Structure formats: C-alpha cells, structure tokens
C-alpha cells in the first residue's frame, strides 16, 4: 500500500485544524452568531419594520445591562432607567453642543451612565433587599425630576431635540428607511453581548455568581463583595447608558420619560419573560416584548397593556425560567 504524499498529509492536517478552529469559534460565539443570523434574516424579509426592529435591538441592549446585575449579581433594581436616560441625555447634549460623531457620542453616554452608576452604587449597594429596591427607584426619580426641572439644559417636558448625528465612521449616513440605524444597533448589541459574556465567564463573573448565591460566604472566601458589586453596577450602568445614547442618536430626541419607572419596570418584565441570568434571555425577552406590544397596540390602542400583562402571567406560571429556559429545555429534549 502506498503511503500518502507528505503535502497531501499536511493539507489534511491543516484542513482538520481549520475545521476544528471554526467549530470551536462557532461554538464559543454561538449566541453572537445566532443574533447576527437573525439580524440578516430579518433584514432580508422585514425591511418595512426596520424602525421597530431597531427599537427592539436598543431595548435588548438595555435589558442585557439589567441581566448583568439582576441575573448574575443578584442586585435587585427598579431604577435602571436612570442610566438609560442619563446616557441618552449625555449623547444628545454632546451632539447638540460638542460634536456629532456617533461613536464618541456612544462613549459619552456610556461614561455618563458609568459615572452616575458609580456615585449612586457606592452608597446604595451598602444596603440590600427592599431598601435597595426603593433606593434604586429613588435615584431614578430624583434624576428624572432634575431633568424635568432643568429645562434650559434638557428641554424639560418638551424633550431634548434639534441635534444631528454625523455618518458612522464618516461613511454610513442615518437614512429614513432606518437601514443604518438597524445595522448600527445590531452591531452594538452583538459587541455588548460579547462583552457581557466575557465578563460573566471570567473569574470576576464567577465571583458575582458566588456573591449572588451567598454574600457572607463569598466574603469569607476573600471576595471583596462590595467592590465587586459596585464594579458590576458601574459596568451595567455604562451599558444602559450606551443603550440610551444609541436611542438618542437613532430617534433624534430625548424625553424625560426615558428616565421613568415605566422604562425600568418594562425592562424587568422583559428580563423575566426572556429568562434571568442567561444573557440571550434578555435579548429574546426584549424582542418578544417589543413586537407583542407593537402588535397589541395596533389591535387595541387603548387596552394593549392587558395583552402584555396576560403574557407576563402566563410566562411566570408556565415558564418560570423564561423563554430562554424553555428553548434550552427543548434543545436538550431534542438531543
């Protein structure tokens, strides 16, 4: 029997290595690939709904920020809108007074969110339970009231508008059809998802899960629990600020309602609906919630919230681990 040519053997080995590398890459980044595939498929078939899709993607980033603290660190909050709104105002004010570059605008929104997250988190994260829940709500309410009162800066109840955003990287102009906004939001979501996954799979993420499981036990293992909680709160606030900035850039207006309890509450509903502590659950929950809300509002503009309420009750009753949990269970059952 003839032995194979050395070059052929090398080709086979190189091919095997390449296949293995591709398989591992796809496996490691499967959630990001799934989101990318969904984005491309939706673009192919749903071009009439790109504006709604962009809203869903921005909302998904915001809910992702909530999952980071609720799902992985056990920080209960009803005030996540504070960071979303701050990020939106920061990006809007930056575009109005400083510069129109969208990427810098995103960074400004994220930094503003992180700063407020740090200042509030250092204080309120020394509490827990109901006290913490009330304090998060109070922080958001205070910031909303400040935004409402400082009309010369924020536009008050009329909102902040009149700013323009330059083309992304000087190439992609925001268009009326919403194509640029759609792909811009999708890119930010995928990057945000990858960053969040990197965080939760790191030793820091493991410490957070330990803190969520038993904060005293985690401290007795030498984990600086307060520092870890503040750190993840700041990261989450930065991500929420980023979502807010994105929203401000896409919609061209920032209102005080972006800081409201309704925004925080809805985000929590979306997270529960999608599945807490899974990251992709936040994405699924946000998209399902936005689409169902839109459809319900078009069917019955007055009572559409009823649909959402029923949906939440059904989700909690029949899918306590959220839609992501149902999908995971189905996946396991199908082998």
């Amino acid at each position: 029997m003839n032995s194979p040519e050395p070059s052929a053997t090398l080709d086979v080995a190189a091919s095997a290595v390449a296949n293995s590398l591709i398989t591992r890459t796809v496996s490691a980044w499967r959630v990001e690939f799934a989101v990318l595939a969904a984005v491309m498929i939706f673009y192919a078939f749903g071009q009439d709904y790109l504006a709604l899709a962009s809203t869903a993607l921005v909302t998904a980033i915001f809910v992702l920020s909530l999952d980071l603290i609720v799902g992985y660190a056990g920080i209960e909050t009803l005030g996540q809108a504070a960071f979303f709104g701050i990020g939106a105002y920061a990006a809007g004010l930056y575009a109005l007074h400083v510069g129109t570059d969208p990427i810098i605008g995103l960074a400004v929104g994220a930094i503003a969110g992180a700063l407020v997250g740090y200042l509030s988190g250092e204080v309120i994260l020394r509490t827990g339970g109901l006290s913490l829940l009330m304090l998060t709500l109070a922080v958001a309410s205070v910031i909303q009231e400040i935004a409402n009162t400082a009309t010369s800066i924020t536009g008050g109840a009329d909102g902040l508008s009149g700013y323009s955003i330059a083309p992304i990287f000087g190439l992609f102009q925001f268009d009326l059809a919403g194509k640029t906004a759609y792909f811009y939001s999708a890119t930010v979501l995928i990057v945000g998802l990858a960053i969040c996954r990197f965080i939760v799979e790191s030793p820091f993420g493991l410490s957070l899960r330990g803190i969520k499981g038993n904060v005293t036990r985690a401290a007795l293992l030498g984990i600086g629990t307060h520092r870890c909680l503040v750190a993840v709160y700041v990261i989450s606030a930065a991500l929420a600020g980023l979502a807010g900035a994105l929203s401000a850039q896409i919609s061209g207006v920032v209102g005080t309602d972006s800081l409201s309890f309704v925004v925080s509450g809805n985000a929590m509903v979306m997270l529960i609906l999608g599945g807490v502590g899974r990251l992709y659950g936040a994405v699924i929950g946000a998209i399902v919630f936005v689409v169902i809300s839109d459809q319900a509002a078009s069917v019955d503009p007055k009572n559409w919230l009823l649909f959402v309420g029923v949906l939440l009750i059904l989700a909690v009753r029949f899918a306590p681990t959220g839609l992501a949990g149902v999908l995971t269970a189905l996946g396991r059952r199908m082998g």
Partner: protein
Amino acid sequence: MSKPLSVEALTSGYGDVPILTGLSMRIEAGSSMAVLGRNGVGKTTLLLSILGLITQHSGSITLGDLRLERMLPFRRARSGLALVPQEREIFPSLTVDENLAVAQRHGQWSATDIYELFPPLARRRRNLGDRLSGGEQQMLALGRALVTNPHVLLLDEPFEGLAPVIVDVIVEALQAVRKRSGLTSVLVEHRTDLALEITERAMILDHGAAVWEGASQALALRTDLLASLIGLDATGAETKQGTKHAAV
C-alpha cells in the same frame, strides 16, 4: 504555611449583647485545638468573632503578627483564615469545579489536589452544588476552604449529620491535610470523643469564657470535667463512636 492564632480578652456578641466575655486563647502554628462546651456557650460565636462577622466589644485577635480586629471579614479571609461552616453553604448554582474555582488563591492547594483528596468529588465535578449528597457537600466545603490556601482552618461542627463512613473519610482527609501542610486548625465539635481524638489541645467554654484548657488526651481521661462542663455522663457512653483516629 501555618501561623499561630491568638485571641486576647475577647468580648463579643450579637449587637450590644455580649456572648463571649474576656476570652483568651492561643493556638501555636501547626497545632490543632478542639473547642468544646454545651450548646449556647459561645463555640460558634468564637469562630464568628475571629472572622469578624459579629460585634467585637473589646480585646484583640492576632494571626501571626497581624492584628485582625479592625479588618473586614473578606480581608481576614485574605489574610489566611478559612471557615468550614456548619451548614456547609455550598453555592447551589455553581458546579463543584466552580465552587472550588471561585475560592482558589495561589498556594499549595489546588482543585486537582482536592480531587485527589476526595475522589468521589472528582466524579461529581460538573454537578451543581445543590445536586450533591450531604457527605459530598462536606467534602466540597472542606476542599473549598483548603483552596483558599489558608494559614488557619476553622471547622464548625464538620461531622454533624454525616454517616459514620463519611466521618471516617473527613477525618482521614484532615489527617492528610495536616501531614501535608501542617495547618493550624480550630475544631468546634459536639462529638467530644472524636474532637479529642483528632486534636492536640482542647478548650472548654462555659458562659462565654474558657474554663479549662489543656492537652486533648488529658481531657479525655477527665470524666469528671466532661460530666460537669459538657454534660456527658461519667461513662462517656454518649461519646462512643467506634472508630479511633490519630490526632490531626
């Protein structure tokens, strides 16, 4: 590397109510001490005080040359204290691997060593913490404390609720740990006979103060003391456990 642990005139308790009153003790580096006494005399309170989890009114706690009393609990843990808690307190949503990884600090004990020490745990390494038997949880609790590579190991009722065969496994593991790293250890245990067999020194607490301290072997022979201070009968019938172990 083990270090000595000293407690001087410690008064501590829950809020304003003191449980320990002027308690002093010293455990030499590499030595082991059993803390004995009736229920409610302050045995667990002593461990919680050392770890900074309850209010310290006065006194000092020293690990090697390091004063601990002003340190937060996580800093005391980083300084080299590790607790194996009475309720085990395994992180339920983390796997066995992750329960060890979250605690791992640089030193001679790693997850691989723990799996060598407890082979049954290696077979469950991907199980979640709440999917383990009581014995496996206790193995993991001990392993998790060891991978922090502490100077002093504090054990709070480590044999409680365990089957005799698992007690033997844990005792053998403690002996192996002692042989390998010579850890200073404090053992709070209501099974007096077992505690005295596996420690070098013993201390009896009563009403929040140390009322007797000496060699464990000597105390094992003092049935009068055991009867009056711990509540065992003169024959020590309650303490007969069968298995004999060398001191750890």
